[in-house]
């Protein structure tokens, strides 16, 4: 069967979405994790909203990074375990098309869902509603970038038995710029300053990884698949 690249991509995205909605537990776990981690901070620091508001951007972003990381492990894993990944690799379609589709699907399931849940956390941490738009936009850009970086890490560690810890070790240092600009954008929006600067940086990082990371992730997958 001969399918164009776009058709193949949309087929894979649909398949991934279908698979995740059939296993709602897997879909919800990172989100619940996100909520629980953010709950830990008021308990461990102080329930005062004024103090929490100062910490909120950092808390939000660290929790978002960790919960995205949690779902990264399954990006290629289940497909590699049952041989689907190898079939996809030899199906005649460019491997990079498959990688792009899978990373996008991962973002839709983990990142976009996280963006939708984030206002809940924002209210709980005392972030003013005027900052919600910036918070959600920065999270959307940041999680998309993280899905790309994560695809590189997941591609490198997919064949490993204990790749989980290694994956965080690889991805977290690479993701630190995201944390800096993302938390900064949210922080500025809370303080009433213009968040445009850090948001532009986030967008630039997002475009940068969108263009280069697919190549790196494809090369990583080739190394572990061959």
């Amino acid at each position, binding site marked *: 069967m001969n399918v164009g690249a776009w058709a193949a991509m949309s087929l894979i995205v649909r398949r991934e979405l279908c698979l995740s909605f059939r296993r709602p537990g897997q879909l919800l776990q990172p989100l619940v994790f996100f909520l629980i981690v953010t709950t830990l901070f008021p308990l461990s620091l102080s329930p005062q909203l004024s103090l929490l508001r100062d910490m909120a951007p950092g808390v939000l972003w660290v929790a978002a990074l960790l919960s995205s990381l949690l779902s990264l492990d399954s990006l290629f894993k289940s497909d590699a375990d049952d041989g689907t990944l190898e079939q996809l690799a030899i199906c005649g379609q460019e491997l990079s098309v498959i990688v792009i589709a899978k990373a996008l699907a991962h973002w839709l399931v983990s990142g976009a869902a996280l963006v939708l849940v984030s206002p809940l956390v924002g209210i709980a941490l005392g972030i003013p509603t005027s900052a919600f738009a910036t918070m959600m936009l920065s999270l959307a850009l940041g999680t998309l970038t993280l899905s790309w970086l994560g695809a590189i890490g997941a591609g490198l560690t997919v064949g490993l038995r204990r*790749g989980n810890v290694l994956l965080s070790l*690889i991805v977290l*240092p*690479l993701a630190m710029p995201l944390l800096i600009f993302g938390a900064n954008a949210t922080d500025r929006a809370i303080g009433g300053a213009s968040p445009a600067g850090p948001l532009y940086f986030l967008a630039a990082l997002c475009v940068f990884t969108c263009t280069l990371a697919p190549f*790196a992730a494809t090369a990583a997958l080739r*190394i572990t698949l061959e």
Partner: protein
Amino acid sequence: MWTWFYKLASPPSVYGIAAAFTPWLLGLAAIAIGYGLVDGLVFAPRDYQQGDAFRIIYVHAPSAWMSLFAYSVMAIAGAIALIWRIKVGHAVAAASAPIGASFTLVALATGSLWGRPMWGTYWAWDPRLTSELILLFLYVGVMALRPAFEDAGRGDRAAALLAIVGLVNVPIVHYSVQWWNSLHQGATVAQFGAPKIAPSMLWPLLSMLLGFTLFYAGVLCIRLRGEILVRERGATWVREAIAS
């Protein structure tokens, strides 16, 4: 021309070249570091502000420079190995990683020792310190990835790819960390403008830089020979080299 190059880059010939270069590199390193240490620690004048404490720069700055240099060597050797399938490149990358990580650690340690009397604290979240720390994490990631694969060749290629991705990321991390601190900054600890360093202080520093680079190259040669021996342990030339 290419066959000549591939022959030169074959494990036995690199093993021999590394063996021949090691004493020269280490000998010259000893001279350069020896001169730098004596001139820097004894003869260079005291700094009018920092007193004798500034002298740690003679170890600190070269280590910090080597931490970046060793990373670039690792990434470039990995890229060469990936692109032209020259196996020795992976050996060079594997040999360079622990040395670079050690230099990073030395730079961080000497920096914090200097920070204690100068800034009043061992550690500050200064952009330079933070990006150096992240560099250490990148080293750790590359070093942990290589042995994680059961198939050594796969581990090599994966580590090479990660090193290249990291090389692209290092400037991004560096600048983002710099802007991070300038955007919302607490109490500033270090404020010294472009230091116009006196020639009597500069010469030993340059000598130390040269010495550290030579030392790195020498240690790299030693480690490289070890790596090659381990990787080629089944080959006949290894048995001959060891027997002779």
